[in-house]
């Protein structure tokens, strides 16, 4: 199945459509969630950093926290909820209403037509959405910090990016492609293979969200260890 994902022909038109749907429709969700989490994280981090007289570190902590972990994981979990459920429900609905059989009857490979574009779209879109979440988080952090200390935007940006290096940014962002692969394959599996009626549609959607969220978290542990292994300087 994994090999089939990359075996030509790739349904470019469907892939483009799915990238648009998954990306553009998830953007408001990840952007607003990132903004809110940015505000919350700054409220918490400021409370503790004040005690140590290190309030100037708030932007740095915010940026590293978001880029290294909060951004990728938050994005993946939000996409697992929104897109995973959508893929699971849509494919299972297509299965129960014989639309997948209809695709096959039209001599179209339903796996390549319906599953592959969705999985690839998740793989490609997750890193982009993660970047949006990171920047929304930073914006939220700035708003919160500005309210508390009236810090200027240039100073906030300077402090935020002071501790950030490319090896802190690229690997955690790219690892979300693996999260996208998990979300796409798990939800497509549950949707594509359902054999029950409307109950199966609900079950496919629920299972897609639950299992893909769980696997994303487990995969994150492994991927963080891999990043530490590949970039030892990023590890403490």
């Amino acid at each position, binding site marked *: 199945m994994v090999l089939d994902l990359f075996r030509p022909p790739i349904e470019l038109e469907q892939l483009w459509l799915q990238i648009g749907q998954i990306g553009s429709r998830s953007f408001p969700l990840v952007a607003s969630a990132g903004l809110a989490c940015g505000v919350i994280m700054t409220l918490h981090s400021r409370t503790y950093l004040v005690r140590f007289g290190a309030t100037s570190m708030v932007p740095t902590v915010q940026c590293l926290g978001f880029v290294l972990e909060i951004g990728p994981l938050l994005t993946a979990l939000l996409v697992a909820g929104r897109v995973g459920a959508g893929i699971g429900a*849509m494919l299972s*609905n*297509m299965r129960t*209403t*014989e*639309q997948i*059989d*209809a*695709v*096959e*009857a*039209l*001599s*179209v*490979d339903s796996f390549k037509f319906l599953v592959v574009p969705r999985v690839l779209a998740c793989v490609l879109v997750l890193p982009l959405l993660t970047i949006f979440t990171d920047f929304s988080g930073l914006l939220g952090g700035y708003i919160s910090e500005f309210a508390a200390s009236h810090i200027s935007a240039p100073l906030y940006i300077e402090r935020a990016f002071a501790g950030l290096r490319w090896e802190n940014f690229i690997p955690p962002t790219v690892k979300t492609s693996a999260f996208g692969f998990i979300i796409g394959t798990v939800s497509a599996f549950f949707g594509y293979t359902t054999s029950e009626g409307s109950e199966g549609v609900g079950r496919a959607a629920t299972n897609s969200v639950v299992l893909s969220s769980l696997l994303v978290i487990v995969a994150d542990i492994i991927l963080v260890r891999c990043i530490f292994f590949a970039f030892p300087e990023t590890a403490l």
Partner: protein
Amino acid sequence: MNDQRRPAIALECVTKSFGEKQVLRDVSLGIQEGEAVCLLGRSGTGKSVTLKLMIALLKPDKGRIWIGNQDISLLEPRALSGVRRKMGFLFQSAALFDSFSVYDNLALPLLRMTDMSRPQIGEIVHTVLDEVGLADEAQTMPADLSGGMRKRAGLARCLVLDPEILLIDEPSSGLDAITASEIDELLLRRKMQHNTTMVIVTHDPYGARRIGDRFAVLDHGSLIAFGSPKELERHPSDTVRNLIRER
């Protein structure tokens, strides 16, 4: 019907089970080119399964299924695609793609199976939509169509590739008598004008008599009768006579 012609579809001792439940038992059936055969039987006797076996959406546990000279039970997916190219399948629910407009539903097989340009595809789609009376609904989404319109749109999708064989699962189910009659009319016209081979699963003896040259009656997964309506009227089985009797 002239039985000397080569069968367009032939089932040889086909058996199919789902888990413990045997749905078809040793079914053998030959359908001639240009012939319309109606599959009759009570619910759950394996009619729709037979239809899906004919287009290889299901594989038989035993037996062989021939489409022309090809045994589709042995074909690889790529070769199967060539056989399916000659066939159209109208699902009971029409199975239109929810996320595509009526136009896109019809254009998909042409885009995938032919080298036609977009304008040529547009021309064919509009011609077929006109043929089924849905010329004004090209941009409508399937969810906004009535049951009869969905059936006609599903039929139109089957017809765009001008198939040699049409497999039709309950064309009149859930439709009022007038709409059902319109669908029958479309099928009849197709049969007359294009000499299309048809296999129609139906519970409607009136429609079956209008379209069907021969009836095949399934009962508990076995083929218990196969012949012209006149022949089956004299069949010893009450089940057969009741199924073909117009109510």
